[in-house]
């Protein structure tokens, strides 16, 4: 057996050296086929992991549970009891923070008014900013046809642009910039968006400095977006839920639910072991490999940390936006638990791409004042009693009466007989 092993590996090496002139992809494919065709299939993994110059098996880390050591800490851990701040100093500090926030918000307002925006066509090459949202729950909504849509509701909580980095400086500054600043879609700017105002005393000065520079209050969460130059927002500009439109498709990225350390049955859906004639092994994974090999193959599914991984769901339709409460209703589900933060951006699928919209982002200058009719119609709820909302035209409005069908709907529901049409086609 050892002889045959060596032999097969030798033939493989020869094949690889022959095909070196081909592209990497070609080589990889040939390698895979040669491996799968050869009788000694069990070396496949070993050969792939043995670095043959180009081929390495990259397994990305699923999650990072500790903050990176080279970045300064974010949270200031000051034991409250030991700090002898007198009441006067405390109130003074509070007023200072309040004033700073006021100044920051006025600055941000000015920034948003300076920004030139328009509802314009969005070329396929441009990328807009996204929003950092919080998932706050799931609700059903109904269509005008009576169909049920389960929606996720996402809160846009005080989003501000915290940083705008040019591709050049990003490239120089970080390893991620080296990878992403000049990608195949052209030079990309990094736009950092912050969400949810927080008490600045809980954060270190290094963290707070970012926000002073941008002139915005200290934020709890930061998210980065790759933005092209034509869709660049201003530094310190507030972002609104109306950045997205009803009927638009979006992509949600976030961390999945953190389940902690879980067994094979929960984590991978393994079967477990029988109830009867089994002791203490009802939920164990069973065998993890063969005897001859005397090792466990890399990638073997085993118990371990489940969830808390970055996941993206794309092609979610926005069906309703509550402008007063800054809440977006999205059809379908998004990764993560309730209360988790997500990144929401335009969907890039060609047929679901946003063709025209508020071009860098939405600003109050785009607000259109709807003219109130002189005498409101009978039986229509006055607008001051309702939230300011935009609805998808297909969505049932709860202010309207119950759905009533007609006989034409019944005919439509019955549909066409497919078997009949097929027979007719054959006869022709």
């Amino acid at each position, binding site marked *: 057996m050892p002889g045959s092993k060596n032999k097969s590996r030798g033939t493989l090496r020869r094949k690889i050296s022959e095909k070196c002139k081909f592209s990497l992809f070609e080589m990889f494919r040939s390698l895979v086929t040669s491996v799968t065709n050869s009788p000694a299939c069990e070396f496949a993994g070993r050969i792939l992991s043995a670095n043959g110059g180009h081929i390495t098996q990259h397994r990305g880390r699923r999650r990072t549970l500790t903050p990176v050591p080279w970045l300064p800490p974010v949270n200031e851990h000051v034991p409250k009891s030991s700090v002898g701040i007198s009441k006067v100093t405390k109130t003074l500090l509070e007023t200072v923070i309040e004033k700073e926030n006021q100044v920051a918000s006025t600055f941000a307002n000015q920034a948003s008014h300076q920004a030139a925006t328009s509802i314009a066509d969005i070329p396929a090459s441009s990328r807009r900013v996204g929003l950092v949202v*919080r998932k*706050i*729950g799931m*609700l*059903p*909504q*109904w269509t005008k*046809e*009576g169909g*049920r849509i389960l929606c996720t*509701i996402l*809160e846009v*909580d005080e989003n501000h642009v915290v940083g705008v980095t040019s591709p050049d400086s990003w490239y120089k500054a970080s390893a991620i910039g080296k990878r992403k600043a000049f990608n195949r879609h052209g030079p990309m700017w990094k736009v950092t968006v912050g969400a*949810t105002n*927080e*008490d600045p005393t809980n954060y270190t000065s290094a963290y707070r400095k970012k926000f002073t520079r941008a002139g915005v209050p200290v934020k*709890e969460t930061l998210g980065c977006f790759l933005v092209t130059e034509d869709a660049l927002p201003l530094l310190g500009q507030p972002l609104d839920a109306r950045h997205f439109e009803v009927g638009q498709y979006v992509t949600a990225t976030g*961390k999945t639910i*953190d389940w902690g350390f879980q067994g094979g049955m929960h984590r991978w859906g393994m079967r477990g072991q029988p109830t009867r004639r089994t002791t203490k092994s009802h939920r164990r994974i069973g065998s993890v490999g063969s005897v001859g090999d005397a090792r466990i193959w890399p990638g073997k599914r085993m118990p371990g940390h489940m969830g*808390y991984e970055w996941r993206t769901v794309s092609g979610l339709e926005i069906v309703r936006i*509550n402008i007063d*409460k800054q*809440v977006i209703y999205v059809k379908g589900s998004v990764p993560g*638990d*309730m*209360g*988790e933060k997500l990144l929401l951006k335009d969907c890039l699928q060609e047929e679901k791409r946003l063709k025209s919209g508020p071009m860098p982002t939405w600003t109050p200058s785009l607000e259109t004042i709807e003219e109130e009719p002189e005498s409101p119609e009978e*039986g229509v*709820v*006055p607008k001051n*009693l309702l*939230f300011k909302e935009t609805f998808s035209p297909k969505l*049932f409005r*709860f*202010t*309207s*009466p*119950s*759905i*009533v*069908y*007609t*006989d*034409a*709907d*019944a*005919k439509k*529901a*019955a549909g066409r007989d497919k078997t009949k049409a097929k027979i007719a086609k054959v006869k022709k």
Partner: protein
Amino acid sequence: MFRPAAREVVKLPTRFFSCKSEPTRAAPAKKSTRKELAGLIPAFPEIYPDFLQSPVWNRRNALKEELERQDMLERRMNIDIPEFYVGSIVAVTSSDRNLGSKEHRFVGICIRREKEGLLHQFTLRNTIENIGVEVMYDLYNPTIKKIETLKLEKRLDSDLTYLVDALPEYSTFDFHMEPQAHPAGTPIPVNEVKVKLKNPPWTRRWEILSYRGIEDTWTQATPWFKRKLHKTLVNDYEKYDLIANYRTGSTKEQEVFVQEQMQKFEKERHAAGLTRRRILKSAASHK
């Protein structure tokens, strides 16, 4: 990794925990506050189970509940959703896409009320031509045209799923039943009927579940099961658990808050002159 933001600080419930063994001693008689006099309903959780918070702790979110409540109240302004309990006889008239302009009406006993908010659903059961039929309805589904309570009463249990295994006469109701009016201000009658089950096999092991509305399941139970497990009720220890509903249950503060919101909504709509329909009402309390 869930961390509530500073804004939505979770309010810990402060409530008298009633001791089930000695309720009088554990929960002292509460003074009727000014708030309770102002038209608030003591039996709010029973009448409006859809306005309660989620029993799952991290799904409670004040903003989500506010938006959801807004939709629910709007719907209640358009359709009269009467008071009914598990055990009441209810008729639902809905429009059906397959029937076209014709209406679809179903009458039956309410056997379950589940979930909160817009997700709230209830199940009706009836026997039609000796076939047991159950229909689940979403309370806020816009295809529902009318909900009527034909007979307002409660049963001994808050879940009548066991009617599946009961003799068919316990779940047979006339489709042309006349609605029986409930005299306002009188307490909701409790129908203390004890249901007789069919012979086993049953869909569930009713003999070890603590249902009060079933008559003597133990003698009927299959000997094989009797041999396996002696007469011990499942979750029998729960009666000693003083804080069983500490996390899952609703708090008095929340109930009062929701009722005030409902009253405010009603008042606004009445002032706008759109409708005189009242949302917050109870058959048992006065007026």
